[in-house]
């Protein structure tokens, strides 16, 4: 089995109002070193191994559903796990 960890965030060019609100709150608690906050999503997929191209499959899922390429970027990590 594969465990795929997908991280989705707003693209750098897109203003993240939630991130801005959290940053301002962090500043209020005295964390003045914080220069930027981006809020995103974290997804964990578990996939059966099979006769397929793993990267191609992940890219397809990420670009068609898990993220919206107009405003979001994604990156992912793959771990091999033993089925329980």
């Amino acid at each position, binding site marked *: 089995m594969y465990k795929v960890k997908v991280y989705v965030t707003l693209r750098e*060019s897109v*203003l993240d109002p939630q991130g801005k609100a959290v940053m301002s709150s962090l500043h209020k608690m005295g964390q003045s070193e914080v220069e930027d906050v981006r809020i995103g999503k974290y997804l964990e997929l578990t996939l059966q191994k099979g006769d397929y191209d793993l990267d191609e499959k992940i890219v397809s899922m990420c670009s068609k559903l898990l993220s919206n390429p*107009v405003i979001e970027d994604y990156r992912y990590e793959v771990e091999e796990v033993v089925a329980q």
Partner: protein
Amino acid sequence: MKFAVIVFPGSNCDTDMYHAVKDELGAEVEYVWHDATNLNQYDGILLPGGFSYGDYLRSGAIAQFSNVMTEVVKAAREGKPVLGVCNGFQILLETGLLPGAMRRNESLKFICQPEELVVENTSTIFTTQYEKGEVISVPVAHGEGNYYCDEETLEQLKANNQIVFTYRNNPNGSVENIAGITNEEGNVLGMMPHPERAVDELLGSKDGLKLFQSIVKSWRERYVAAT
């Protein structure tokens, strides 16, 4: 002319849309469930507001893979009028029938209030009954109506006259005050404000009614007058 109001799990403006078309416009209309696999008998498709599939992942994201959306895409390609309001607009963006995407409102607040819109384009099948530059009052109700597209897309929208409605007092941070856009062909309109909630003076405004009247008039001119 017969309309379909598409109902997804979580749609909540479907009844308003149905009422506007049946009782105020006086046209034929039916509810169509999201797993329908045929829209051939309908001449116009209406995607209502709400929170389809709970807005899980992103507003409108899950709806794009429902059975009925395959048929909506087909209807759009055939040139049938397709109107998406609020969550319906978000679904049209996620499906790729319209360019761009929605972000959270700049204020991070859910906004529910009447808004003044400027009718920018009166040559679409949705706006022939308005005057160019007319200011109309139509309510908005959304948390994610902050329209975004890149510079290149914006230039295309302008060049093709795809920007149909703009906000007079931008409530959500949308690029270029955009409240509603069409596709390049002009038969698919997405807008965040709710014209179906502005169809009677009792509701505070009937400025939305002309949008539905425009659709019917354009359809009659194309299909009834020709035969």
